[in-house]
């Protein structure tokens, strides 16, 4: 069971504290809604609902917001055998299926939606 735990517990779950990687002003968020797949964990490109736990004074967002997972510590497995993993979990704020911020920091993967991917500099 201890060996299986990284397989079972890896990825983004409810109550995961993540970084917000865009310039909306939110810094730390807590995931409370994961609805993309019925079971399993959140992967890059999945839409989530988060509550904002830490923000800068310029932040105009409310308590909760919609978002999309940008990076995960758990590796992303591609069909061609490639594996990509990052050193942190991160997400971006989403409203009306578009990113709220105008800039996104850090690298990301191809599995992301178009709107958010266009703002990223490094796509792997």
């Amino acid at each position: 069971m201890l060996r299986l735990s990284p397989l079972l517990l890896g990825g983004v779950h409810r109550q995961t504290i993540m970084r917000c990687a865009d310039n909306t002003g939110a810094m730390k968020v807590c995931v409370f809604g994961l609805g993309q797949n019925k079971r399993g964990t959140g992967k890059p490109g999945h839409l989530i609902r988060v509550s904002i736990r830490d923000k800068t004074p310029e932040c105009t967002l409310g308590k909760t917001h919609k978002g999309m997972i940008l990076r995960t510590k758990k590796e992303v497995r591609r069909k061609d055998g490639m594996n990509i993993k990052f050193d942190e979990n991160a997400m971006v704020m989403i409203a009306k299926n578009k990113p709220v911020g105008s800039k996104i920091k850090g690298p990301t993967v191809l599995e992301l939606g178009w709107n958010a991917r266009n703002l990223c500099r490094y796509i792997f």
Partner: protein
Amino acid sequence: MNARQLWSALRDGPLGRPTSAHCTALEARARAGIKVTYRGLRQRLHQSTAPFKKYTVDNPITAGTWPPLDQMGTPITNRECFQLMHHLQMAEVARLRRLRTFSMPRINPGDLVEVRYELSRTQQTFAVFQGYCVEVRLKRSDSSFTLKNVYEGVGVEQLVPRYSPRLLDVRVLKAIPNPQTAQKEPLTRDYRYKWQYNVRGKFTMKQGVHKPGIRSVEPKIRRRLSNIKRRYMHQRVEAGQLIKAEMYRRALIYSLDEQRRRAHRLRRRRQKQKWGVYMIDKEPKITAITALPSYHPLTEGNLPK
């Protein structure tokens, strides 16, 4: 009837060698009453066991060739299974290698590698990933290497399959020198905290035999240095830079030097061990008397009369 005659009779049947086109050798055998079985695509001829009714271990005639492999067939062993899979894997590796348009360099852990691969074929997008190789997995067609780099303060680790057809280019930008001779195990092995207290045979073990760990790196380094020196000499001899006479002359000089050094050391030791003679290497600059305080009885004015 000797063995050769028996074999030819079995091969051709009692009617002799079949000659007509429509009557094959196997049909002739079948007509002659010799059992013929078809096993997959192969045909197997069964020798008649008529002379010996019972084909058992107890039968002294057949016991030599037990088990009757021609009747039961050879079972596939683990070893054969492994070899079959290995050949399949090798064929696959060769196919993928032929498919590749670039030459794959040799990648060792620690190399700086640049990989170009296609992200999407329909959108014609490609990605370039640069990173240090942190792991190499050699698993035949499933071989891969892991690259790690930091982009905008976020570490990215990517596993790249070695034989992926989606790879466009792999280049080694910076290779580590001598990956073969890279130090694999640490110089010292300190087992102090790995000492097992509940070991079987602990009380039967002789005291002082087992000394856990290697505490000093000196002999190891000395050995390595001498190896390097020897290798260097060999290379020089092979390159023709050193001729034999010169080598011997040098060896003689070195040996004389060593002899003198040893004699000197011995003399020093003897001197040190000489009983009743005490030697001080250096005269102390500040004698104890000059360092004494003014009120001390040994200071000059204070000496008792």
